[in-house]
């Protein structure tokens, strides 16, 4: 039996502003296997962000089942969700990913600090990852002293350092030039290959879509297509 990293069953989400109801997700069902390198694409307002929020336990679905790393998120308390995010999920946001008052190393260590990992272990882990993704020598720089690409790499290091099951990345290349974006994607592909970490992107970037091994397109809160980049279309 396949162990799914993410499993959604008929997930629905409606946003309400006074009497107005805006359906964001209309019955999404999908399965993501461990180790996938998956991109979710679609026009603005199609529900990409909402979907990532729900998978990441940052928001709750109104209906349906959300299983992440074997846990039904609908049944977890907010404290349990926070613990799950800390221990099993990694996040890379579009921008402003880092705490400006912490150095690159301290930012990368942040989630380990939250986990209570001893200082020596923290240092070793971050050092290793920084060498792996080309950040060696930048440990003591603050975010303001790093380029956009370097900042995103630090964010990836922070997401990876706790060895999460899944990394959720929302438009990670949106603010980067194409060369820097390519370099960042290569880093993430390498981490996916070496560590087997599942990557789920929400993106507009054709480069990300090209590199993803599976591409899901959303339209009006529904899955319009789910394609394995090797050429096999998957049923939504």
């Amino acid at each position: 039996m396949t162990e799914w990293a993410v499993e959604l069953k008929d997930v629905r989400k409606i946003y309400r502003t006074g009497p107005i109801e805006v359906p964001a997700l209309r019955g999404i069902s999908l399965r993501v296997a461990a180790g996938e390198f998956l991109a979710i694409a679609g026009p603005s307002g199609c529900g990409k962000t909402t979907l990532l929020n729900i998978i990441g336990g940052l928001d709750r679905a109104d209906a349906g089942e959300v299983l992440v790393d074997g846990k039904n998120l609908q049944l977890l308390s907010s404290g349990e969700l926070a613990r799950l995010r800390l221990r099993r999920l990694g996040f890379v946001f579009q921008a402003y990913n880092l705490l400006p008052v912490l150095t690159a190393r301290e930012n990368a260590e942040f989630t380990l600090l939250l986990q209570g990992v001893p200082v020596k272990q923290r240092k070793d882990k971050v050092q290793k990852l920084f060498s792996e993704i080309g950040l060696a020598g930048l440990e003591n720089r603050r975010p303001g002293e790093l380029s956009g690409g370097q900042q995103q790499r630090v964010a990836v290091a922070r997401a990876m350092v706790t060895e999460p099951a899944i990394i959720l990345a929302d438009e990670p290349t949106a603010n980067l030039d194409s060369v820097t974006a390519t370099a960042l994607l290569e880093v993430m592909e390498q981490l996916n290959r070496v560590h087997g970490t599942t990557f789920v992107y929400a993106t507009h970037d054709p480069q990300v879509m090209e590199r993803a091994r599976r591409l899901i397109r959303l339209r009006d809160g529904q899955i319009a297509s789910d394609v394995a980049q090797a050429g096999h279309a998957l049923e939504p």
Partner: protein
Amino acid sequence: MGVLVLVKIGWRNLWRNPRGTLLTALALGLGLTLLLISLGLLDGSHEQMVDNGVRFGTGHVVVQAQGYQETGSQELLLPVRVVSTTEAFFYTEAMKHVSRGVSPRLLASGLLSSAANADGVRIMGVIPGDERAVSLIPQRIVEGNYLADGQRSGVVIGTALARKLAVKIGAKVVLVTQAVQTPDTETTDADGGGMQSTLLRVSGIFRTGIQAIDAHVIQMPLPEAQALLGVPDRVTQIAVLLDHEGESLMVAQGLRKQLTGVPVEILPWREAMPTLAQLFLLDDAFNYVMNGVVLAMVGLGILNTILMRVIQRRYEFGLCLALGLRPVQLAVMIIGEALALTAISLTLGLALGLGVEHYFATSGLDMRWFFKSSLPTALVFDPIIYARLSLTRIASSVGIVFLTATVISFYPALKAARTELPGALKVF
């Protein structure tokens, strides 16, 4: 996650905008400075007022016959040995450095007449040398001289009385009074306690600024007063002036032990002069209200600053929560930040406050400008106020401001802890 790490993040957050933080800290520190200056001047002026007040009255501690406080009867005199016992008490090693003076006084009422007029007076028979150490009247002589030890038939009177009697230095006045009759005292009067009179010469005129004293109090040598009242070796009260007002209670208790079984009442000035004490209490209450206002301003400053910082960093807090920081940890971080800001403010405020305090403690706050050309020749209280601030006052002020800041920081901390996901992460 250790609290120290959270405090470290909070501390660094403060220095994201050093100029802004320093300006805010300076503004908040000024609150403490104001508080310290206000308390210092208040304590200093009170110390001076108490010192002056008791020196025009009973001293810091008064020993008098049982019941005198209530009746004021001139028949109530101290037993003979009380004076020597009291004086001996203040010569002991423990008390030697506590008191500034001990003055036995015989008090009575009488009528003072000149060729022009007559008026009722409060007679104070005093030992000039002792009275100089206790009372301010000898220092407020504006014409002539104060009484001298061994001087006979001299009297000092107030300016208002001198004006009423139309007398000047060297003028003769007649003092009429009724001899004292006590069960244990034999009067020297043949009539057994009838009217007595004596001729006195005005040797000095004082001006205290207090109408009741300037118009009605006269001081004359104690032996003359005792002879006039027919009570040799007897006095009504012993006024004791101490180095520090704060020791009044302790000294009164010590004296009570010393005079156990003797029918006397030993009162600290707050009991001997309750009206004056109440006046100070009222003044204290008003000043505490004013200090409360200053404290509230400091508190609101902290609240405003931290709240603004919290509102501006909503995304950052959302990010922390998304990464797994628990709301309570976020709250600790904000409280740490508020306390760090408070610590900087207190350091600045303390440095500034103690600097100004030192100036006012040494040079004083000169209030003479307030009187301008109409400065009276004698004031009830000194027009130059010297600030006094005890370590306890400083510690309590700092402690109160710190506590206020801690309590106030809970609100922004709570607000930060309530940051809602995913709303705070608009990017996601």
